[in-house]
């Protein structure tokens, strides 16, 4: 594989060339006065070599109304700005995954950039080279909520490794040396080096638009206005234990008071509602975020990130010199419920070695610990040696652990009884949590949620770091999570005060924002919304030669979809346009000046979109053309 700096330079210079083209488009648009909404726009429909209009399909999750809306919007835009007819196919998300994104791996070889590439790692999620794929044809699909890992984007590598990627159902081969850059980022030993490599990756991704970037949406949550504590930006509930209600609902910022003269009273109950039920509370096997929230109320994890995205130690503090050897210092005074004793270094090392690194247990965290060498180095200290240095290890959330008592695990370890472990009641009912969480789980009612009571011995009260409010945390006698499937009911509960917090859909934002009974927080998310275009041979059902395989055509797509309009119409302004794999608030966002903003401003509209499309057609060996009207 070629992976040199010159290649990268070439890519970057091309990017600049495109920026110039964008400027040219401005003049072309000057007399136009925005884009017309009528079919055909400015320049006719795109025709196949046979002379039929290009018709493509877009799949979306049938269960999501927003997806449907976005899909229809995309259809509208592609028709108006690119002359492509779009058929919208709602399909169940899981089915799409199973039938379209996944296929039997065929293996074989492929030609990439004139070189033959052996398809070395064919997997169900990476279904084979463009020329030998056998699975279902699909043109485009809407994908929501892929985590972009803004703290440590190394994880994104699985999508961009070309023939070797583990998760490449769209058949995308980077035209820049993505694999090499990810490798470089992995090997980097200083944070600034990492940052520059990642920035380069994301500039290139923005230029190539392998997925058509749409939006990063905000998470909007409504709270009881008397509630104090939630942080408006990036609150992941890290200081949840310090939240309290303040009768009277003062107008000041809802954040934590700077100085506390008198700790707030411990009273009442904090009730939140959630849309999805959770299937397990077993910390070893949970992979659902909803259940994570439910577990976290009774059991803290190793560390967290505060509102400034800074590392904040909870059960243990991690430190390293060069990223290769990490030292974990377990906090003193942590203990499980009887009879399991205290939490020490041995607790974690046993858990990692005997479960995560075992053949049989297949815990949720198993993969994170493969190849890591852990060792007890003191009562409350252990270290982990990584196969390669990772300066941003904690930021990948990989070494994030719940403590599990060794005594509880031992019988299962002896029998290698995974099923028994999964079904262990103490794990499922969080009966071992001692002083390790702000609340104690009272009941998990499978259909309706969880109820907790205050943990009077919560260790967080005695720590030195963090806000003063931790001194008597938590400040509620009880707390509950209610699972309510119907959104209307969740909002109703929030409105009537039956719930203290609930998610709010964008179109109700303003409504609730004006409602004195609810205070609304807006939190930007790192989960992206993208339009996947299938670059494999079967991913273009209109005719021969998949135009998606040309960078220009992908740019044409991106320029045809108006991000501002999408955000205004569907998300009511509560989203940020998405130009590359990282959100703007990420440390690895390369910056507006180097990222092409396809779909906004000069890079949006029928003319610019068609110009890109024509460039793609020129590269294609097939005779696609625009019908001139």
């Amino acid at each position, binding site marked *: 594989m070629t992976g040199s700096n010159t290649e990268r330079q070439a890519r970057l210079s091309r990017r600049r060339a495109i920026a110039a083209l964008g400027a040219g488009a401005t003049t072309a648009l000057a007399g136009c006065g925005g884009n017309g*909404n009528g079919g055909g726009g400015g320049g006719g429909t795109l025709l196949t070599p046979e002379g*039929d209009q290009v*018709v493509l399909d877009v799949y979306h999750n*049938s*269960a999501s*109304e927003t997806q*449907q*809306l976005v899909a*229809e*919007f995309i*259809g*509208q835009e592609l028709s108006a700005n690119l002359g492509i007819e779009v*058929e*919208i*196919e*709602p*399909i*169940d998300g899981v*089915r799409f995954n199973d039938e379209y994104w996944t296929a039997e791996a065929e293996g074989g070889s492929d030609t990439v950039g004139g070189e033959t590439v052996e398809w070395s790692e064919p997997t169900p999620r990476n279904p084979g080279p463009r020329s030998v794929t056998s699975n279902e044809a699909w043109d485009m699909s809407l994908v929501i909520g892929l985590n972009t890992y803004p703290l440590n984007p190394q994880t994104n590598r699985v999508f961009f490794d070309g023939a070797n990627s583990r998760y490449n159902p769209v058949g995308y081969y980077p035209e820049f040396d993505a694999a090499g850059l990810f490798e470089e980022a992995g090997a980097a030993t200083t944070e600034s080096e990492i940052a520059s490599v990642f920035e380069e990756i994301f500039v290139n991704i923005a230029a190539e638009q392998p997925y058509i970037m749409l939006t990063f949406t905000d998470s909007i949550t409504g709270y009881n206005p008397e509630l104090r504590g939630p942080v408006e930006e990036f609150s992941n509930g890290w200081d949840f234990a310090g939240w309290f209600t303040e009768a009277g609902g003062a107008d000041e910022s809802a954040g934590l008071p700077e100085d506390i003269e008198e700790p707030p009273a411990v009273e009442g109950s904090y009730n939140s509602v959630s849309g999805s039920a959770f299937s397990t509370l077993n910390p070893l096997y949970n992979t659902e975020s909803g259940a994570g929230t439910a577990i976290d109320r009774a059991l803290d994890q190793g560390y967290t990130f505060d509102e400034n995205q800074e590392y904040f130690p909870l059960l243990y503090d991690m430190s390293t010199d060069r990223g290769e050897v990490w030292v974990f210092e377990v906090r003193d005074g942590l203990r499980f419920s009887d009879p399991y004793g205290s939490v020490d270094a041995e607790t974690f090392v046993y858990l990692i070695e005997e479960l995560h690194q075992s053949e049989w247990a297949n815990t949720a965290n198993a993969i994170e610990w493969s190849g890591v060498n852990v060792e007890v180095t003191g009562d409350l200290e252990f270290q982990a040696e990584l196969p390669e240095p990772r300066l941003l290890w904690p930021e990948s959330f990989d070494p994030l652990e719940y403590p599990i008592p060794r005594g509880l695990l031992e019988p299962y370890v002896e029998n290698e009884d995974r099923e028994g472990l999964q079904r262990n009641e103490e794990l499922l009912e969080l009966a071992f949590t001692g002083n390790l969480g702000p609340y104690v789980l009272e009941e998990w009612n499978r259909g309706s949620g969880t109820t907790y009571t205050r943990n009077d011995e919560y260790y967080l009260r005695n720590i030195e770091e963090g806000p003063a409010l931790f001194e008597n945390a938590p400040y509620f006698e009880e707390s509950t999570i209610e699972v309510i499937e*119907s*959104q*209307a009911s969740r*909002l*109703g509960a929030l*409105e009537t005060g039956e719930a203290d917090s609930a998610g709010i*859909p964008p*179109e*109700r934002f*303003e*409504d609730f*924002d*004006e409602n004195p009974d609810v205070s609304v927080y807006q939190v930007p998310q790192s989960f992206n919304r993208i339009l996947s275009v299938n670059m494999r041979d079967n991913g273009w059902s209109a005719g021969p030669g998949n135009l998606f395989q040309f960078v220009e055509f992908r740019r044409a797509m991106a320029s045809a979809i108006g991000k501002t*309009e*999408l955000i*205004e*119409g*569907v998300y*009511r302004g509560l989203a940020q346009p998405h130009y590359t794999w990282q959100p703007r608030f990420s440390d690895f966002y390369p910056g507006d000046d180097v990222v092409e903003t396809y779909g906004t401003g000069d890079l949006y509209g029928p003319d610019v979109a068609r110009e890109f499309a024509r460039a793609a057609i020129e590269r294609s060996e097939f005779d696609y053309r625009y019908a001139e009207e």
Partner: protein
Amino acid sequence: MTSEKPDRFDRVDWSAYEGSGGVDPSVNTVGAIGTTLPLVALFVYDRQFVGEREATFGAVGLEADWSGLEYLFAFTLILFVWYVLVPLYQNPRMTRYYWREFTRNRPAVVSLGWLLVVFVGGLLGPLVVSAPEQSVLAGHQPPVYLSIDTANVAQCLGEVRGGRCYGTWEYPLGTTRGGKGVFRSIVYGMRISVQIAFITTTIVATIGITFGTVSAYAGGWVDEAMMRFVDVVLSFPTLLMFLLILYIYGAGLGMFIVVFSLFAWGGTARYVRSKSLSVSEETYVSAARISGASTTRIVRRHVVPNTASSIVTQLTLLVPGFLLAEAQLAFLGLGDTSLPSWGQLIAAGRSDLGFAPWIVVAPGIVLFLTILAFNFLGDALLDALDPEAAAEVER
């Protein structure tokens, strides 16, 4: 109370109306076959010569692209015309009698009027009214004369007064979240409902009548086995089965219609069986038999027509069940969301109920009225056609 008791539908010897029995295929059959052939030809043309993604009528400049369901629907319409409407015309005396009986029930007449509106709206509406189109900026517009807080709309198309956005005549019943006109969606939903009604009815009637008569005439262990089979079919939790199938194979309207009609004919078959048994006891059937008519002929000419007429009521009462099931599935988010059905519209509006109730309420009321109309109609038919069947049908 009437002292005058003209021939009832179920007592009519139909062969009397079909010439002197010599011409075997009746006018209706000839007509039905005659009109079905062009349809088949069109279907073959569509499959063979028109591209997958081209409009069926592209050659004549029409946009409509027919799916398999449309052909089925057209076929059921042909059957409806030749075997329901034409016989009514052929037997004016009988028709007048029914009409007189029927008009005594005023709610039923109103219901029939409403169903005609739905029928005509479903058949012709899409030709007159343009398809609802998405326009995200026009979302959540209120119906005319109503208003919504401007906070809830991205953009107000109508007048804004006192912080409230008023509806416009462009969208008489307001718009959905995606800016689709509710009124237009309802008109297009009529088509779906009419299709569901016609196709399911045809399938249920065909299977039910065939199965019922065969069972009645086969007798013995065949009859026993067939009726046990009906028991099993009737015991099936249809909704559960459909959920399963839907999840495994994905399901559009076609699958919905097939699954639900395949599980719904049990009652009809049972009823037809008992009816055929009793009809075959009737004097005129014995007379026909004695005069040498073959069993097939008796079944076709006497038993089937006479039982068919008496299951009209039962079928009328089945249809609302299907419409309701479609709406329920849509509400659960399991239907085909691209389908412009009433259920989908209700489902689409359910989370906006708090501030944009028209998206749910308008189609909800239309659905309610349609189900209501079918029930009133069924009730009236029960009185007019076959009062004795009352108990049987309501089972």
